[in-house]
Structure formats: structure tokens, C-alpha cells
């Protein structure tokens, strides 16, 4: 009785595995590869695209450089870079299309008398070269540096733009934009950074070099604490049907709202 049952089970399992093996190939999918900072925006767009067309979008979080290399070697459809392409990369036949701009606001407590800092000063503050607000014209108080945890896209972007990678001497590393805003709002000596889209009235966003962090200033490039999210493709290679559809979809008017909802400024 038991033996029979086991035999039956084995046969069924074998059958199943054969069926599984012969299943028709997966429907067309689009592969993307690159910047870890873009995971949120690509994730949201991919989900929406899948809902609309049924085509799945895969995303490999490897980093901008690796993503660009992957496109060059034809290992993915669309590369993702959170920086502009370098000249030598363009010479190799790559094309960059800006999908969105990641604007990062520098925030302080509303009572802080400071309204403006330039990029260099911000970098000096975050690397611990300037430690007191009085050195930049504020109150005599120790500057409290609030940042994000290692691996966060906002931290990566901020340290990238201010060229302070691995050199920041944080007082607090918080795990969400909301926490950063709440903390800065409750400490008059704190300074922090958060994506522009999520700033609330409880904190004051500084102008950087005299330029306010508005959507327009981010788009025209005059607000400097920002970086582009670039879609990288090859010039002489036509995208597959589904990849082209995805590309058109995310650069279209329709995708604007989805892109904004992830906290970045859409470019189109």
C-alpha cells in the first residue's frame, strides 16, 4: 500500500518536472541593469508597465558603471546610470537619455538663521572641516550632521555630488527620508539632506549658491545638488520590440506621475 503510494508520487513528480521543463518560454521581457539609486523609480515604472502590457521588466542593481558596461556588451536592453555619460563612453557608441533628475535638498531647522550655503561649504561641513555654525555666519552651536544609512540612494547621490564619499562624519544615520525630516525639525542645530519632493514645512530647505531647490531650477541645472538618471542604449543597435515599448512608455507623458511619486523630477 505504502510502496504503491510512493511509486505513484514519484511518477507524478516526474511528470510535473517534465511539464515544467517543456513550458513555453517566458513571455518577452525587458532587462535593465545599473544604478542602485534608480531601483525605486525603475521598480515603480516596471510594475506599471507590466500591469499595462504584461511584459515583465527585470532590474539588476549593479551600479552605474556596471550598467553601462552591460549595455556595451549587450547583456541587457537598457542600462541605468545616475550620472551623465562620459565622453569616451559616448565615443563607444552609447546614447544617454535623461529620464529624471534626482534633486537633493539641504535642510535645516526653521529657526536656523542660515539661508544659503554653497556646495563647497556643504562638503566641508559634512566632512567635519567646519563644525560650528558660527563659522558660516550662524549661531555659536555645534553642527549636527544628519544623514542616511549606507546604501541609500539619497546618501549615495549626496556624497557623489558633494564629493564626500566615505568621508562624512555623521552624527546620525537614519533609515528614511521622514526620519531625517523629523529629526532636523526637532534639533535647531541639525543639517540634513532629503529628496526635494519630500520636503515639508517643518524644515527649511537652503538655497545652494543662491539657487532654490525648485523643480525648474533642478531641470535647467542651476540647482547643483542634483544628478540625472540616465537611460543608456547603444546607438547602432535597435532595441527589441518590448524594450522599445518600455523605453517609449517611461519617457512618455504618462510616466510623469509615476516618476514624481518616487521623489524625483521627471525630465520629459
Amino acid at each position, binding site marked *: 500500500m505504502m510502496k504503491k503510494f510512493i511509486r505513484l508520487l514519484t511518477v507524478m513528480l516526474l511528470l510535473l518536472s517534465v511539464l515544467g521543463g517543456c513550458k513555453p518560454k517566458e513571455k518577452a521581457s525587458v532587462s535593465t541593469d545599473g544604478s*542602485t539609486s534608480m531601483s525605486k523609480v525603475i521598480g515603480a515604472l516596471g510594475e506599471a508597465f507590466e500591469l499595462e502590457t504584461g511584459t515583465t521588466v527585470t532590474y539588476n*542593481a*549593479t551600479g552605474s558603471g556596471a550598467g553601462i558596461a552591460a549595455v556595451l556588451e549587450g547583456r541587457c536592453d537598457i542600462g541605468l546610470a545616475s550620472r551623465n555619460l562620459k565622453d569616451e563612453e559616448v565615443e563607444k557608441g552609447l546614447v544617454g537619455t535623461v529620464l529624471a533628475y534626482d534633486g537633493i535638498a539641504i535642510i535645516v531647522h526653521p529657526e536656523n538663521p542660515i539661508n544659503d550655503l554653497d556646495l563647497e561649504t556643504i562638503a566641508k561641513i559634512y566632512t567635519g572641516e567646519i563644525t560650528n555654525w558660527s563659522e558660516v555666519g550662524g549661531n555659536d*552651536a*555645534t*553642527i*549636527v550632521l544628519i544623514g542616511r*544609512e*549606507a*546604501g*541609500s*540612494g539619497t546618501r549615495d547621490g549626496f556624497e557623489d555630488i558633494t564629493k564626500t*564619499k*566615505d568621508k562624512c562624519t*555623521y*552624527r*546620525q*544615520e*537614519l*533609515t528614511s527620508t521622514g*526620519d531625517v525630516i*523629523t*529629526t532636523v525639525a*526637532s*534639533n535647531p*542645530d*541639525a543639517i540634513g539632506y532629503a529628496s526635494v519632493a519630500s520636503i515639508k514645512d517643518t524644515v527649511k530647505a537652503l538655497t545652494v549658491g543662491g539657487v532654490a531647490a525648485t523643480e525648474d531650477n533642478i531641470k535647467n541645472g542651476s540647482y547643483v545638488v542634483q544628478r540625472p538618471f540616465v537611460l543608456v542604449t547603444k546607438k547602432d543597435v535597435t532595441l527589441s520590440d518590448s524594450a522599445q515599448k518600455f523605453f517609449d512608455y517611461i519617457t512618455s507623458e504618462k510616466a510623469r506621475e509615476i516618476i514624481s511619486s518616487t521623489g524625483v523630477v521627471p525630465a520629459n
Partner: protein
Amino acid sequence: MRKNKIFEDIVHGIFLILGLITVGCVLLITVYLIISGLPAIREIGLINFLFGKEWASTAAEPKFGILPFILSSIYGTAGAIVIGVPIGFFTAVYLSKVASKKVRTTLETAINLLAGIPSVVYGLVGMIILVPAIRHIFKVPDGSSLLAAIIVLSIMILPNIIKVSITALDAVPIEYEDASLALGATPIETYFRVSVPAAKSGIAAAVVLGVGRAIGEAMAVMMVAGNVANMPSLFQSVRFLTTAVSSEMAYSSPGSLQRNALFSIALVLYMFIMLINVVLNFFLKREKEK
């Protein structure tokens, strides 16, 4: 008759399966943690991992030393015990022996409520009230610190300590106390010289339970401790073992050394919890044998 026997067997089987589910979960977690936690330790080296003083998981030259986390967790827990145990212990003695029935019911309701508050609420209140308060009182630039974590943890472990201690104190036979009183000891003398020594294993178990709760807490600590991987110091921002895992898990890419190292931290934390459980069992067993 036979039918009854079959029915009994079936029910017995169902209960056995339900019991095995729990055991299965524990085994699954243990095996999974060991399998996923060992590769990073092997790659980094056990000594470098456990005693390295620097943690920079995403730097160009990543460093994976978790000594700051281990020490922060130990100091934080010890601090919570130092503050929480005396308060919890005396509350328990008062409620079990001295308090009138009315007071006891009211306070016990409050304690139960305290036990039921989610940790994120503790964290939020700590973040908004405690952290700025520490900043003002101690005149430090920022209040997020080991001290804030200790205070939040000591409040969080209070209900555990009080409830378990009360149970132990209530179980002391009334004859012991009557004998002591009859010999002329005052009530307070009786409680501290007779009742407390008689309940000491139970009270020790309460403390160990508190340690377990404090060392395993992540959310509330994450919100008040600042989460920078510093070596622990009372007014510096620190990262516990628990928060080290939870704060970086979201962004670490699967298969990377960073992710694996986070599993290794979880494994270390698990070892700590196991140790605490062994100690707890030791005390509970002694209690039973008496």
C-alpha cells in the same frame, strides 16, 4: 470502543503535528541563519569580524568589524537592566505584598498596557520627547545617543520584570511570612528577608527575560540611537546588533558580501539570544526543583 480509540489517535496526531510546526520553525530559522551567516564570516575572518572596530559596508574598501555593535548592544542592555531592574523589582514587591487590592488592580492594568504598546510607539515618543530633552538637559549637540536607547529600553523591559517577579513573589507560601511575623519581624523586614529570598530564582528569571527583550529590540532603538557605527559612549550615537541588520538590509543587494555580513550579524545576535535562553532555563529549572 474501537472507534473511540481511533478518534483519540487522530486528535493525538493533529496535536503532534501542531507541536512539530513550532519545533520545525525554530529548526528552520537556526539552519537558515547558520547557512546564510557563515559565508561572510569565512570570507572576512572570525577574528576580524567579531573584533574589528570599523564598519563601512559600502565604502570603496569595505570594512566589516562588528565590535562596536556587540559592545553597544551589551552596554545598552546592561544600562537598561541597571535602571529597569531596581524600579521593576521594588514595584513588584510593593504590588505583591504591600499594595491594597484596589491599587494593585489599577497598577497591574497600567503595566499590562505598557507591555502592549508597540515598540515603534516607544521609539516615536523617544524621538520626539526624550531625544530633545537629553539635548537640553545635558547640553550636548544632539540627543540621539546610547543614553536615549538605554532609557527607552529600561521602560520597555519594566512590564516583563514586574509581571514575572510578582508571580514569583505571590507563589511564596504564606506560612513563611506568618512565621517571620510571629517571631516579631516587621512586615518590611519579612518581605525583604523572607519573601524575596524565597522568590529569588523567579526574580532572576525576570531579569534574564528583561535582558532578552532589551537585546532583541530593534525598532525603538533605531529611532533614538542615531545608528552611526561608533564605539559606544554614553552621549554618542551608536548602532546595536539589531539595528545594524535592519538599517542596511533594505538596500543591500542579494548575494553581496554586505548582505551576507548582515546575516552573520543576525547569527551573532541569535547566539546571544540562545545564551540568554540557556541561562533562563537554568533559573526556571531551579525554581521548579524547589
